[in-house]
């Protein structure tokens, strides 16, 4: 069930009514039932996957907690008879068992993810080798990719690791845990929330709050506006261009950079608006996933503001563990004494970042494009890190800090850099991407930007007007957001004003949304991840 569908609206309405009709202590069960119904719509065969992940992580977390409880009991009972050494030994043994349990569940779930998501990618690469050797290629397997598997697997694993790290206690009720894993607003495309973030929202009773529900609906409406009016419209032109690399080269690729940046942001953040809004209706606060990423002044900042929950996941569960593990610290120590303090201090950061970006690339999709995309990001971040002292000197020499023009320059630079990197997404191979991007200055067709060629890519003048207005609106809302919630600001206005604003937005979505027959019913871009 897509967020942009009549059935989802109907589903949401039904769940809403039932949710606020049942007594507070049963409300979370309504959400659990709803989430599984939602999942069933994708196909009953997927259920087994999410249930397997839920059960194994829950059991492992419980086991980890039990081991701890057993240890505490044993130490308490034998407080006097045990020496300090013996206690320590016992603790180490417990830790070892806990680690085994955690590792088992972790590998199992990553294994499932790897098999369903990457088998065909692996086969295609193996086939390439076989072809080279002149053998008979392997057949592809048709494995179903369960809806939102990357998202719910990551959510479950964050919980498992947190329990192992004793940051949180294990949840005793398997059904409550199942709700955390499957909560339907965040099932399709995140956010990748943490157990602690959702716990109180999901399991405590909620009374119907006029303001909260209307805020939730407003957020959903805003998401629809981004997704339907902007993303689904601009994608028509984008697909025309990227689908025909022979015709649309040179300056067109620059247009694609802009189109894709807008489309991806409007689509993905719009979808998240819907998810967060839907959560809010039920009194569940989901973590934000975007913070005006296109206002970032550097790539590093961009990645702290785009797909925030994913970035945080990789930082917490890959970057930190690798950088502070014993071998890495030893390596860092060694390199500092052998390679000098400058490089020495950075070596560990570089290595762990490499791992993070490789993982980020692979997470986004099973193709070389994404691997290269991830590593390109890595490269750019590392280079800008190296250039940091240079920037600093530049900033000191010319007093540009705080200069608006300079800020705009930085923002534009980041936008373009990220835009070109994102092109890996748009073409069918790494080499095509390089060829297309490298060809931008040599196309000799700059005139397409003004000679009306852009009217031939499936978008009409009316479409451009709507897109322009929509993007301007998105921009203004972002500007206003810097000084606090836009919905709160509107809420402070008289009822008539509020009514006009929200009704107008509704009508805009209804009339200018690129939905229904005649428009390609494009899926959320982030569904497949």
């Amino acid at each position, binding site marked *: 069930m897509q967020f942009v569908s*009549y059935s989802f609206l109907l589903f949401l309405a039904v769940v809403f009514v039932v949710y606020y009709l049942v007594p507070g202590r049963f409300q979370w069960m309504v959400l659990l039932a709803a989430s599984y119904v939602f999942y069933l719509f994708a196909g009953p065969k997927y259920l087994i996957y999410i249930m397997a992940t839920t059960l194994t992580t829950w059991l492992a977390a419980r086991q980890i907690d039990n081991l701890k409880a057993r240890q505490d009991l044993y130490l308490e009972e034998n407080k006097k008879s045990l020496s300090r050494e013996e206690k320590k030994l016992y603790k180490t043994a417990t830790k070892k068992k806990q680690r085994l349990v955690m590792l088992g569940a972790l590998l199992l779930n990553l294994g499932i993810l790897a098999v369903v998501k990457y088998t065909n990618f692996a086969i295609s690469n193996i086939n390439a080798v076989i072809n080279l050797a002149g053998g008979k290629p392997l057949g592809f397997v048709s494995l179903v990719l369960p809806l939102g598997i990357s998202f719910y697997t990551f959510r479950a694993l964050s919980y498992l690791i947190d329990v192992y790290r004793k940051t949180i206690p294990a949840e005793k009720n398997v059904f409550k845990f199942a709700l955390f894993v499957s909560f339907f607003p965040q099932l399709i495309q995140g956010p990748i929330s943490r157990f602690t973030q959702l716990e109180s929202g999901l399991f405590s009773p909620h009374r119907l709050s*006029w303001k909260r529900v209307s805020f939730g609906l407003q957020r959903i409406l805003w998401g629809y506006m981004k997704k339907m009016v902007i993303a689904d419209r601009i994608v028509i032109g984008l697909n025309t261009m990227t689908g025909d690399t022979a015709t649309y080269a040179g300056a067109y690729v620059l247009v694609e950079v802009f189109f894709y940046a807008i489309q991806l942001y409007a689509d993905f953040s719009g979808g998240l608006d819907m998810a967060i809004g839907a959560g809010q209706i039920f009194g569940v606060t989901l973590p934000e996933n975007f913070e005006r990423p296109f206002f970032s002044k550097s790539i590093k900042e961009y990645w702290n503001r785009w797909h925030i929950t994913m970035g945080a996941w990789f930082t917490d569960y890959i970057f930190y563990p690798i950088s502070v593990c014993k071998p890495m610290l030893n390596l860092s120590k060694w390199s500092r004494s052998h390679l000098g303090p400058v490089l020495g201090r950075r070596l560990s950061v570089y290595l762990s970042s490499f791992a993070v970006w490789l993982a980020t690339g692979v997470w986004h999709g099973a193709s070389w494009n994404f691997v290269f995309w991830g590593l390109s990001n890595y490269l750019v971040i590392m280079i800008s890190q190296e250039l940091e002292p240079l920037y600093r000197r530049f900033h000191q020499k010319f007093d540009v800090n705080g200069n608006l023009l300079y800020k705009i320059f930085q923002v534009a630079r980041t936008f373009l850099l990220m835009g070109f990197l994102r092109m890996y997404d748009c073409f069918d191979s790494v080499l095509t991407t390089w060829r297309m991007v490298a060809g931008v200055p040599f196309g000799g067709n700059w005139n397409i930007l003004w000679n009306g060629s852009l009217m031939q890519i499936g978008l009409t003048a009316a479409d451009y007007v709507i897109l322009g207005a929509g993007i301007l609106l998105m921009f203004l809302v972002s500007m206003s957001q810097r000084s606090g919630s836009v919905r709160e600001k509107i809420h402070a206005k008289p009822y008539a004003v509020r*009514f006009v604003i929200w009704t107008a937005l509704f*009508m805009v979505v209804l*009339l*200018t949304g690129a939905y229904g*027959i*005649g428009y390609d019913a494009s899926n959320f871009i982030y569904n497949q991840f």
Partner: protein
Amino acid sequence: MKRRKIFWRRFFRVTVSGIVICSMLFLLERLLVPKYSVGTQDGAMIAEYYDDAPKHNLIIIGDSEMYENISPLVLWQNYGINCYIRGSAQQLIWQSCYLLEDTLRHETPEAVIINITSMQYAEPQKESYNRMTLEGMRWSTSKVKAIFASMTEEESFWEYVFPLLRYHSRWNDLTEDDFRLMFSEEPVSLNGYMMQVGVKPAENVPAGRPLADYAFSDVCYEYLDKITALCKEYGVELILMKSPSVYPYWYDEWDAQIKEYAEKNQIKYLNCVNNEEIGLNFQTDTFDGGLHLNVGGAEIYSNFLGRWLQSETGISDLRGDSELSHEWEQKAADYDAKKSEKYRELTDS
């Protein structure tokens, strides 16, 4: 006290807001839905049926081979048959079935003619054709069933319930007509007949391409069974008909199947393909090279049909009904006016 005040204020707000939004939506919908009477007229007749008094003794249900080939005026003037054609472009057999069900809700004619050309289609062909057939139907269980039977994969039931969702992007090509005809459309047909006056001789008609399987699909037979059962239930004489045309090809194998079905169910089957008795000349009587008849051809064919109905079914002659006669006088005048207007347009262009 205060709480109550807040409640009522809120109640008032919600009600007023709701009314404002609903009326806006209603007006927008009326504005944005396509106006068949000034556009694709082939979608206008289904709705026009409800404006005619339900006193027909013959109902004809089918696609363009019905609504372009049969002139009800001839049937009335020469045979006293008060007929209405419930036709729509590319009408499918299940749509014919539910249109029959819908019609029987309003009246019980003596006879019903069903066009069986559509037996060859087991699947919906095109969204636009679905719309032309279904949108004109009044809401009833028949319409709901017809919608669900007809929808292509890309369609949604809700877009039939709220056509605004389907036509939301038409704001870009609104015309003056959309405002003028917001609440009432102009009639375009004469008892469901869409007049065509051009002439284009049938030439180079290709032979039918051999098919692997000539058997009509089970789905189609299911609906044909339903039609037969409905007619039996209401005591209506059912006639299966294949209109005269030279293309699309009507295979002998298809003809044989319908013949067999008719015999088995004791219903009449009238195949007019290559029927010389009718007296049609496909050099002059067709406006599109042999697919459909022009008004001259339709009048010739209607005379044949009237004769056949009188002799084969003994359908009553209603010319004695003064009220009907009076109505038809008016319709005849409209018909002639339309005919001369169309001919004028033809010679002008």
